[in-house]
């Protein structure tokens, strides 16, 4: 469909701008505050969109390439080099559903260990560097560190198998 006529041209421009704004929302907030407005202008100019001569669909290619750059490039990191959650979620979101499920299960042990350390060993992490003799973890803490990732991964695999069996049973009906 050609986006001719002043109203359609305006609409086409708005659609494209909205898509770029959604993409910009994935950048870390400090980066967005510094550059988002400027980047939007460049992205729209770079996409080659010209009112009256353009199809929005054709410019989706530029948008998708830009999305891939967000997922893979510095845009997905903040200024301290941390990977933005938006970029990570976007990268996972672009996978096929079965791949996405496996990525989530593979990430579970790391997420569980991070949560365990943050919420359970927070005091230990804060106080240990201040003592001359380092404070050792006790048996229960070592056990939790060893078992929680394995247990979470096993649980994730169990859920994955059950869920995929359910999906295949659903499609067989």
């Amino acid at each position, binding site marked *: 469909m050609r986006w001719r006529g002043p109203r359609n041209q305006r609409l086409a421009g708005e659609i494209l701008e909205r898509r770029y704004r959604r993409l910009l929302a994935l950048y870390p907030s400090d*980066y967005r505050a*510094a*550059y988002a*407005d*400027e*980047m*939007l*202008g*460049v*992205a729209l*100019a*770079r996409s080659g969109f010209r009112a009256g001569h353009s199809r929005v669909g054709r410019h989706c290619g530029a948008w998708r*390439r*830009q999305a891939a*750059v*967000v997922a893979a*490039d*510095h*845009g997905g990191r903040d*200024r301290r080099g941390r990977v933005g959650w938006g970029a990570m979620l976007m990268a996972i979101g672009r996978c096929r559903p079965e791949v996405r499920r496996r990525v989530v299960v593979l990430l579970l042990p790391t997420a569980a260990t991070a949560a365990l350390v943050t919420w359970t060993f927070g005091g230990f992490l804060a106080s240990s560097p201040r003592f001359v003799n380092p404070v050792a973890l006790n048996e229960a803490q070592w056990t939790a560190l060893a078992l929680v990732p394995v247990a979470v991964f096993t649980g994730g695999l169990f859920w994955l198998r059950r869920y995929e069996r359910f999906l295949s049973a659903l499609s067989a009906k």
Partner: protein
Amino acid sequence: MSDQPLREPAFLVLTALAGGPLHGYSIVEDVLRISDGRVKLHTGTLYAVLDRLREAGLIEVEREEIVDSRLRRYYRLSTAGAERLAAEADRMQRNASAATLRLRRLRPEAGTI
């Protein structure tokens, strides 16, 4: 960024700004021209490079304008940026000369490469 050699996009952005202050989209176009159409900077890549160069003090914001109700920021090369670009160009020149010289010795009968 000070010890590492500049990556190609950063080198090309500095080269574009050596010609005078430019805003984001004109940097993209100039880099395309300088590289004979080979390097097309994506918006995300461009601003990642600009952000790093600004943090390293190699470029600075010259002025800001509002065009079609959008912010347009002009960047210029700082003194440190000009020095860095000159040093980088010199380093690349020396490497290229060394490579050309050795290739000539490798194939003397060819005369020129």
